[in-house]
């Protein structure tokens, strides 16, 4: 019984982090219908920003979430202006943009490789190697903090989307772009803001990831199918769905990892993606994007 509770807690904590990693992806897809394959690579970039702050300035990785989010948001605006603003007007939007984001992911990976080499890195604040004990159950502080902070942050974003004026505009644009525009929403501006917000979430996630996983520039490839499975399971574009998808799959993965073998836990996510393909032949992303 203690073992099961143990696995459950670890799975949920990790699931929280994965939910944060996926939420930005989901947000960007919702508003812009872009499947951003570069999102995971940009999370890795956020982890490196955090790594720099931790190693050279001694800033706690959790505090580094703020600068990391800001840096990635700025990167987001630049990327949007350079690549997607032009693309958003072209006809073959969906097909081309996926390949573009793939190429972007490669570029980010290569750039990180040039800057930081391929060495595996991890930030090591004191709590990353510490744990709470409740009876026989041990809870690593690092994962617990990361999970709780992730879920809190997502809750904050959800509240922002639910109650703020900008949040109304983002949700409205997600659901019916044309109608939003006709009610006075500058949808192009909303797209930029959402993209920047999505990448800010990637940056924040990167900070937490930096002490939960070890990372290196090519790490993002395994995160692509992992995050896709989570986001797709939860219904692309819905942040609450992403959280549920992340928690469910991550708990399953935790059980698989303990009872079958650590290498198979990531496999859970990949196989989930194939199962979804089998049961949802209409595609991972549900209805077709609205026509422009």
């Amino acid at each position, binding site marked *: 019984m203690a073992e099961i509770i143990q696995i459950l807690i670890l799975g949920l904590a990790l699931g929280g982090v994965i939910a944060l990693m996926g939420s930005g992806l989901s947000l960007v897809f919702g508003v812009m219908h872009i499947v951003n394959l570069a999102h995971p690579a940009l999370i890795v970039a956020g982890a490196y920003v955090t790594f720099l702050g931790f190693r050279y300035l001694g800033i706690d990785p959790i505090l580094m979430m703020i600068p990391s989010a800001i840096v990635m948001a700025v990167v987001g605006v630049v990327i949007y202006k350079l690549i997607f603003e032009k693309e958003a007007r072209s*006809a073959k939007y969906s097909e081309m943009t996926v390949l573009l984001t793939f190429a972007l992911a490669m570029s980010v990976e290569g750039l990180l490789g040039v800057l930081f080499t391929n060495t595996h890195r991890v930030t090591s604040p004191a709590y990353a190697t510490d744990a709470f004990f409740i009876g026989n159950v041990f809870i690593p502080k690092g994962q617990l903090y990361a999970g709780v902070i992730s879920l809190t942050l997502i809750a904050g974003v959800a509240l922002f989307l639910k109650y703020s*004026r900008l949040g*109304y*505009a983002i*949700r*409205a644009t997600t*659901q*019916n772009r*044309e*109608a*939003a*525009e*006709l*009610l*006075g*929403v*500058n*949808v192009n501006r909303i797209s930029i803001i959402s993209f920047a917000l999505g990448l800010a979430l990637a940056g924040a996630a990167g900070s937490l990831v930096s002490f939960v996983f070890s990372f290196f520039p090519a790490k993002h490839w395994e995160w692509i199918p992992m995050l896709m499975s989570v986001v797709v399971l939860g219904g692309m574009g819905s942040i609450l769905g992403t959280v549920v998808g992340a928690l469910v799959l991550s708990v399953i993965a935790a059980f698989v990892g303990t009872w079958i073998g650590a290498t198979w836990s990531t496999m859970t996510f990949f196989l989930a993606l194939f199962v979804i393909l089998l049961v949802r032949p209409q595609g991972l992303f549900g209805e077709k994007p609205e026509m422009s």
Partner: protein
Amino acid sequence: MTDLLQVTNITAGYGDGPAILDGAHLTVEPGKVHCIIGPNGAGKSTLLKSICGMLSIRKGDVIFKGERLNGLRPDQILRKGICFVPQERALFPKMTVRENLRMGGFTLDDSKELDRRVGEIMERFPILRERADQFAGTMSGGQQQTLAMARTLIIKPDIIMLDEPSLGLAPKIVQEMFDIMKMISDEGVTVLLVEQNALMGLRNSDYGVVLDLGRTLFEGPAPEVLADPRIQELYLGGKKAA
């Protein structure tokens, strides 16, 4: 008296496609209901879309209160005072009715004032108050159309453009939509209506505009349009005036 909105000889179409509108013109008088009729593909919806900025105008002008609107985005044109309710429910299906109404006042900066107006609308449309916390997508077609039309009253624009508000609704409910339109008009809002059901549209309007092949064929008081034998023959189903 100056005209509120003046559309002169505009040419417009989708993307690089052929021109759907080719030499359409329109004069809109303040406070009146104008009904645009014409066969399928005549360019009726295209005309509304070009006015509200969803389509770029290739030639000609849209002048509103003496100001040229060509090239402005839909959100900018809304702020000038022209509101467009597109065909087939312009709602946010996964937002509640209340949230949909609040979106109707997105351009208002004062949140207190917005709440007050949303409350006012719900007073006038009890069905919306009843369903206030329900997702808009779960309501019936007529209720959704009611919401889409009522929502425009939150900002009370100068002109409301309705694209086939009766589309896909049961005949009994269609009359309700015209009643709501009358209610909007009685507020002093100018209405520009596109209607497939030409007879019904014209009978509920002050002015009629006949559009075909992308150009304006006739503009005049609705009774005159209804009485014109050629228009009767070609566009009103050939019915002789009784």
